[in-house]
């Protein structure tokens, strides 16, 4: 319960206790530490909780910059950004999203400004497209389970094991497995699309299993995690490692597993839109995110995983995630355009919907 109260408490604390941040719905304002000389507008599909430590630390380095942060759902962020781009209107100085395919589409449509700096030059090639879309995190897509409810022999270590688990213990796990609603979640769609690419047979069978198990569908990571917290759901699938780890830190009963057959690794994207009013401030923030200091803060307080570092404690996963070949970083590049093709997307989501949403309803005993 305390977990659910946290956002409200945050409002209360922040609203009454300090002038440091005021939350209006999904919007947060971080005033400059000294006299404000610039205001950076960030539209992000990233939890404010995760971004806050980074924003605050950035302001230590840029004491005259105020930050206006609005939290979006990925699909909404993309839609608004696309419209603004077509109409040539401004929509924030910096866009952050876990749906990197959407950012790549925006960049491909010519809606992004290039930014080059010493920090950007250090970014690996798969996390940088055209110096317009940068991946600034390193987040594996993990499975989360509640250890009280999932016995050790049940713990799935691969996609196949999950599928089998759901098939062999249908009653136990019916309605107890949670994942994204692809209709609402952009990142959910992307992860599913990539799952289908990585191992289509496995994906098909998993989908079938999820359908039969009457999977619980939610819009976002935190929604799934809160279900896990409350014990409604025993296993969360395709959860972003950062959120999962934050949740696990709060609730010691939650455990994280990196699937050993393959693990998709998301690098959350940042983009400076063409309509940005303060692109130079956006560039500074971007540089900060990519810098060693920013990465350190990210690893310790925000995203917990990093490409160079080892897995955080108590995470069940392979020793060397990327070198072993198990970790599959999602390449930020034009290949993601296939995911963003409207026909492709609508067909994929249709197929998924038919299987996961419609069928269980149909099959549920009345």
């Amino acid at each position: 319960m305390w977990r659910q109260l946290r956002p409200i408490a945050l409002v209360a604390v922040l609203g009454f206790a300090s002038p440091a941040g005021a939350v209006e719905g999904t919007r947060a304002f971080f005033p400059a530490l000294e006299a404000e000389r610039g205001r950076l507008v960030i539209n992000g599909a990233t939890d404010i909780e995760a971004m806050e430590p980074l924003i605050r630390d950035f302001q230590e380095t840029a004491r005259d910059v105020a930050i206006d942060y609005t939290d979006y759902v990925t699909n909404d962020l993309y839609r608004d950004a696309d419209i603004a781009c077509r109409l040539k209107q401004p929509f924030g100085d910096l866009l952050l999203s876990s749906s990197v395919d959407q950012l790549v589409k925006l960049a491909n449509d010519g809606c992004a400004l290039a930014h080059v700096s010493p920090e950007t030059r250090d970014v690996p090639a798969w996390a940088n497209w055209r110096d317009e879309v940068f991946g600034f995190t390193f987040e594996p897509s993990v499975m989360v389970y509640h250890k009280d409810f999932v016995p050790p022999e049940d713990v799935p270590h691969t996609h196949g094991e999950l599928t089998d688990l759901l098939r062999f213990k249908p009653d136990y796990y019916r309605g107890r497995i949670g994942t994204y609603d692809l209709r609402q979640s952009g990142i959910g769609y992307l992860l599913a699309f990539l799952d289908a690419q990585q191992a289509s047979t496995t994906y098909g069978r998993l989908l079938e299993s999820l359908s039969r198990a009457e999977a619980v569908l939610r819009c976002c990571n935190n929604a799934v995690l809160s279900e896990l917290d409350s014990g409604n759901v025993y296993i969360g699938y395709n959860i972003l490692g950062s959120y999962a780890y934050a949740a696990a830190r709060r609730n010691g009963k939650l455990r994280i597993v990196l699937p050993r057959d393959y693990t998709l690794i998301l690098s959350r994207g940042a983009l400076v839109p063409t309509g940005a009013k303060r692109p130079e401030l956006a560039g500074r923030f971007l540089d900060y995110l990519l810098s060693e200091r920013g990465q350190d803060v990210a690893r310790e307080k925000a995203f917990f995983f990093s490409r160079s570092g080892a897995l955080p404690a108590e995470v069940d996963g392979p020793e060397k995630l990327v070198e072993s070949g198990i970790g599959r970083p999602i390449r930020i590049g034009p290949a993601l355009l296939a995911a963003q093709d409207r026909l492709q997307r609508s067909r994929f989501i249709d197929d998924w919907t038919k299987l996961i949403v419609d069928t269980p309803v149909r099959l549920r005993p009345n």
Partner: protein
Amino acid sequence: MKRRETSLFWRLVLRVALVLCGGATLLSAAAWYYARAAADDAYDRLLLGAAIQITANMTVDAGNLGVTLPSSAFELLGLAERDRIFYRVVGPDGRTLTGYDDLDIGINVTAARAGPVFLTTEYRNVPVRVAVVSRALSDPSFSGWAYVVMAQTTEARRGLAGELTTRAMILVGIMSLLALAGTVLAIRYSLLPVDALAATLRARDPQDLTPVEADMPRELKPFVGSINHFMGRLDERVTLLQRFIADAAHQIRTPLTALSAQVDMLEDDDLDVNRKRHLGRVRDRVSQLARLTNQLLSHAMVIHRSDSVRFKPVDLGDIARKAFRSTVPITVDPDVVVSFEDSAEPVFVRGDAVSLREAIANIIDNALQHGVEQRLAVRVRREDDRALVEVADDGPGIPPAEWAAVTTRFVSSKMGEGSMGLGFAIAAEVALAHRGTVRFLEKGGRDFTVILDVPLYREGT
């Protein structure tokens, strides 16, 4: 304004450099052209491959055309890391199935039925390369042509073309530099004979009129031939002239002696003062004429000998004494102390006795005519590796400013009366032929000295 000298070397180098530059430019242009074509070719295949993959994934399902866009097609195109991709799938009815609806840029889809069509155009303000691939669909419920329009920006292409061109240009540049360096060396080497010829000519004695003998390339032969021809003619002229002078002087001798004889026989006792004076003048002029004639002859002989007579080791002291004897008349003023001082050891020089005698005789004669008042001393000595014959008199001497001019012909230090004549000039020429000089010592406290300075004879030189 001084005209700038042209240099054969630089002319050649410049022209070769120009040609190489021109060639390099042409090659670079060709390289750029081919690089572009190659880059286009390479990336066109990617474009085509992606388009074909998409056409391959077209399906007809219940009368509806559907297409699954394979990620691999985009990954293929993603090999051009920075380029943006635009695409459009068009059904037989002309409707856009998916992709960028406005990717409609004057494409002749009919032409694409025969085979893939490529074109370069602009889309969304950037240049793009477009491939159009068609597929004929024949399904019982559905038939017609479907098209895939695949476009990609050209950054990678340009990059590749640029890189290829740059590499080619570097190679061309290196080759050109090597060629230029090689050519410069070759030109320098080839022009060596010219330098050698110049050096040979420079090293020659200015007096030397013998033909130039040297190894030289065919192209220079006309020049040297000309020089030699000219020198030959000059030599002939000089010889003829000298011979003429010699002959003339010779011819004059007899009438001159006769004239002198007549003048000698003229009794001046009966003459009045004026006539006596005139007679005196006549005697002086006859005497002057005689001297000049002798000098002319002396000179002609000396010149002639320098060509034909071989040098031998000769005793300079002996020669000087002979010159002294023949030049100092017995009738010299008795109040003048005339002395001859030989050196302790014999002084040998490599030369011609007759010319040396003439030279010394002329110097002594000059002193007698113009210098001597009370004293005339002739000394022969050696100093280091030089042999010296010094003629010193206590007369007024010649001022230093005139020393250079005096050794050229017919310069008179006093105008009119008693001109120097050829004397010093003859001595100077003889000295030069013996690799020595005639020099002067300024009248210090005592005497004005004229010195004939020639190198000592050394065994084996």
